[in-house]
């Protein structure tokens, strides 16, 4: 299963075959009074440009820590993360993060929240162009009418849309999503998954996304990275998701291969690396 031959199925080959984002032998440990506590141990992952990578694993396995090292909020204890051969040392708008809890500034409208980033990242663009970027991206997520609303007037799904618009408006090379739809109701979640997929298809941005939902990962991703349990978590297995794009949820569910993959992932998570309390 690990070595599924996907070439004839994959209609979205990577834009180029050079490694784009490289997680190179990364370990992360925190010092404690009883010695170092190792969260992640020897993680290696090479991501190609335009790939959609999903990460799955039980809570506490260090998925968020791993993505924090890609976004630059944390530094690896050993190894390094490189984007286009450049070592990542600090956060930056080339690796935009869509945070789990939205983190929109509550005193600004949807428009102003996006504009803040656009203004900071593209200081030299003319004012009219900056405004156009904000408006275009609000339209992209279907929130043109909510431009002047403050976050507290928006539903969870709308807030997450603003967050995605804010991230994409800055033309990131990598889009990092930490369980972006975890707090949403199932219907909104499916809607947003489809929107994200459409945006990804149009923008061909490289995506790293943490999820708890195997179906979400299989619907969205090119590859599913499954992590072993912490401490000292590693990448247990990488599953290729060979379904042709554009994907259709109903057709996908009817594909017998879908259940093979799904069962394989479930087997990994709930049998081979079952959580203690699961």
């Amino acid at each position, binding site marked *: 299963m690990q070595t599924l031959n996907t070439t004839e199925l994959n209609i979205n080959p990577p834009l180029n075959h050079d490694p784009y984002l490289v997680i190179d032998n990364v370990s992360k440990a925190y010092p404690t009074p009883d010695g170092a506590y190792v969260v992640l141990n020897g993680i290696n992952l090479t991501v190609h440009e335009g790939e959609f990578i999903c990460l799955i694993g039980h809570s506490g396995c260090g998925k968020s820590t791993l993505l924090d090292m890609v*976004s630059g*909020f944390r530094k690896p204890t050993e190894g390094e993360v490189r984007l286009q051969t450049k070592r990542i040392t*600090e*956060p*930056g*708008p080339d*690796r*935009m*993060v869509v*945070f789990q*809890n939205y*983190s929109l*500034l*509550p*005193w*600004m409208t949807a428009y102003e929240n996006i504009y*803040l*980033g656009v*203004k*900071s*990242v593209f200081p030299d663009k003319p004012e009219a162009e900056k405004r156009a970027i904000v408006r275009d991206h609000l339209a992209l997520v279907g929130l043109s009418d909510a431009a002047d609303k*403050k*976050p*507290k007037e928006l539903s969870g799904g709308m807030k997450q849309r603003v967050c995605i618009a804010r991230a994409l408006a*800055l033309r990131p090379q990598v889009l990092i999503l930490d369980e972006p739809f975890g707090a949403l109701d199932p219907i909104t979640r499916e809607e947003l998954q489809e929107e994200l997929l459409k945006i990804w298809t149009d923008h061909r941005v490289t995506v790293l996304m943490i999820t708890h939902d195997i179906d979400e990962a299989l619907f969205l991703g090119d590859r599913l990275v499954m992590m072993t349990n912490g401490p000292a978590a590693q990448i247990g297995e990488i599953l290729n998701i060979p379904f042709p794009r554009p994907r259709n949820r109903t057709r996908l569910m009817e594909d017998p291969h879908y259940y093979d993959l799904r069962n394989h992932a479930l087997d990994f998570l709930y049998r081979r690396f079952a959580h203690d309390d699961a």
Partner: protein
Amino acid sequence: MTARLDARPKRNHQDLVSMLGKQAKVLYPPAIALLIFLVIWQVFTSLPGATLPTPIQTVEETWELIVNPFFDNGGNDKGLFWQVFTSLQRVALGYTLAAIVGIGLGILIGTSTFMFRALDPIFQVLRTVPPLAWLPISLAAFQQANPSAIFVIFITAIWPIIINTAEGVRQIPQDYNNVARVLRLSRTEYFFKILMPATVPYIFTGLKIGIGLSWLAIVAAEMLIGGVGIGFFIWDAWNSSRISDIIIAIIYVGLVGLLLDWLISQIAKLVVPEEQKQG
């Protein structure tokens, strides 16, 4: 926060009646409590050997002061308005200085761990010093009554402003700081778009405590420095055994204190972002 005027619902007659009913529910209890208080006061001060005037005596004896707060016979012989006005001028100056310096220092120790470690222990010691303990040292330093009183206001009001501002800065949610880092916001942008809006409710908590303390301190300080001012008015009345005057001045002090508190709350309503209001 803008253009809320048109959003106010139009009240028709029915609403007005029910509103008056509600007002009555709010106004009756304190009115009754006040009446009972006055009755108790009247009863106790009518007993043989009572040392304080009755409420009726108080009003009779201070009638001139009550009806004529604006007289000015030169020197210290001024109406209560002028006494309070002089005290308020001192408070305004000392408190404004405390607000400016306090917010600045608060942001400094809130944003810099090094400055926090350096200054916080000193602040923690100094803030427990009672306001009047500062008066002799400031008299020694300034050699004049008025600047000393203003300094006492300043040094009294500044601690809650510093401490609350610093706390506000440290309480900025990590999410907002992460957004600032990933967007690589400039320092100015961070200051005006994230730090200030997130901290302003805490700043106003400090400002509100500060104004209360200023008013407490000025009355006490003026008793010692003399001249015009509601504090010395009270002390002067005590020295001339005009007890009724003291009582009327105390009521003035209380009402003005309440007014100051209300004023800061009103400014807070205008300044604090709608989304950041506490409670």
